């Protein structure tokens, strides 16, 4: 539990620094992300029984991303009804699956306001996943709780899931995020053009 407090403290401290200072960290965020992914890679590489793990993933590797797509779109549609936002924007925002750096600029091409909402909503999804994943897995299976993170489970939220869910969910989380990362860049423009 102490790690969770450190995670939340780290996030809040970062937000305060970002809001109230003009400190520049360059591309340290990306470098840290690559370092983490590298460490995770080492962890996977040195673990034995990788082949058995991949076999064990089986249909879950496809079912979980499908659940995330359907669930996110239903959630986005309900949110748009609640907020009285046109459904196509609600669906497009939710089709980002947490990938805020893609969703924001993509939506901003069509509407600056929805671009900002798309960015913030998907950033918030990532932040909520960081805060609530460790709590959620106390009540629901840790494999199914992966869907919370959407596309971010292949990078930014992957270390957190591995930390709290265990090394055994690394591949499942990565494959889940990878599939959604491949879908989002096609699905968002498709929704905006078709609806």
């Amino acid at each position, binding site marked *: 539990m102490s790690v969770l407090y450190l995670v939340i403290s780290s996030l809040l401290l970062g937000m305060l620094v970002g809001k109230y200072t003009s400190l520049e960290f360059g591309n340290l*965020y990306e470098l840290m992300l690559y370092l983490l992914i590298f460490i995770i890679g080492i962890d996977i*590489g040195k673990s034995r029984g990788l082949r058995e793990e991949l076999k064990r993933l089986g249909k879950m590797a496809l079912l979980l991303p499908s*659940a995330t797509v359907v669930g996110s779109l239903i*959630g986005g549609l309900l949110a748009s009804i609640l907020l009285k936002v046109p459904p196509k924007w609600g669906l497009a925002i*939710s089709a980002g699956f947490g990938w805020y750096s893609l969703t924001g600029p993509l939506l901003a091409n069509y509407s600056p306001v929805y671009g900002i909402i798309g960015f913030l*909503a998907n950033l918030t999804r990532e932040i*909520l996943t960081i805060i609530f994943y460790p709590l959620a897995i106390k009540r629901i299976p840790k494999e*199914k709780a992966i869907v919370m993170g959407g596309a971010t489970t292949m990078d930014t939220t992957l270390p957190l899931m591995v*930390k709290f869910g265990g090394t055994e969910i690394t591949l499942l989380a990565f494959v889940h995020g990878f599939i959604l990362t491949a879908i989002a860049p096609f699905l968002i423009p498709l929704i905006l053009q078709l609806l």
Partner: protein
Amino acid sequence: MNIFIPLILGIFVGYLLRDRIKFSMDRPMSVALLLLIFFMGVEAGRVEIDAPKLLISSLVFASFTILGSLLIALLGVRE
């Protein structure tokens, strides 16, 4: 897809050194995770938020997409 380079490199290094790496990767992972989250917080803090309405909308969208995903996963995915 730059993310694949460190991942594949890490898997390769880990596989090659699997008999030599005796320590747990838990601690380096925790340190790197905390730093990553700090820098993510910095990025989030820099976003100018003028309208509370935008914040509420974002929170509603984020919550509903997470809950929707969880609901479908819990109801529809069987292990």
